[in-house]
């Protein structure tokens, strides 16, 4: 099969941990935002700090971790915010 590919966006300390703010990964056809996140945590152990605090957006909309992701989607992982 041709694997689906998703674009992953990372911010703040997540970006420092992974070394880039944007990367591309394959995702299975039944992948969810959570699947993508767990794959990334396996690759970058320091991300485990965010296991309970991470938020996710799919295609620039807030989403839940069980939201499905499709080929070409942008999946953004957001650490706790500190604007203002």
């Amino acid at each position, binding site marked *: 099969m041709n694997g689906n590919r998703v674009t992953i966006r990372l911010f*703040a300390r997540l970006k420092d941990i992974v070394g880039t703010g944007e990367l591309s990964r394959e995702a299975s056809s039944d992948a969810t935002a959570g699947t993508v996140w767990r794959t990334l945590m396996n690759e970058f152990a320091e991300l485990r700090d965010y296991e309970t605090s991470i938020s996710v957006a799919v295609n620039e909309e807030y989403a839940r971790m069980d939201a499905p992701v499709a080929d070409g989607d942008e999946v953004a992982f957001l650490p706790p*915010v*500190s604007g*203002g």
Partner: protein
Amino acid sequence: MSDNRATMDTAPYAITTDPLNLDALITAVTSGSPDATIGPGGITSFVGVVRNENAGRRVLRLEYEGYDPLALRAFERIGAETADRWDVRIALHHRLGTLQIGEASVMIAAASPHRADAFAACRYIIERVKQIVPIWKHEFFEGGDVWIEGATADPEDDVARQDAIRVAGLE
């Protein structure tokens, strides 16, 4: 605050690397609306500025990063929440990039026929910005740097929203 390069973006919501301009926000909440039967009687504003101290550290500068499209949607969401509760027109601008001590990172304005509404809305908005808008500050202090992490960015978290309503108080 008196930066000559200040822009004049009178949009209600803005995210920019340019210096912010309070006059632009006040214009945004007071201009036009010829159909208003009762014009504004009070305008409140809040300006957040980079402080020289945080948690005992001597701060040198802040670098703000944001997820712009989602941050703008969060602004719109906050605007809708505010309009549901108070009789106000609001503006909300946030700056990104490198900010020196004393520079403004966020500006909010709220205009209402009733000053109580203008005060409550302004306070509510800054609390919500800190709760749900995907913007992060990278603090550079004497001796190091750290990403500041505050609230989990869940706009559906009703406990957080009720907390902001409580802090806005009075109503």
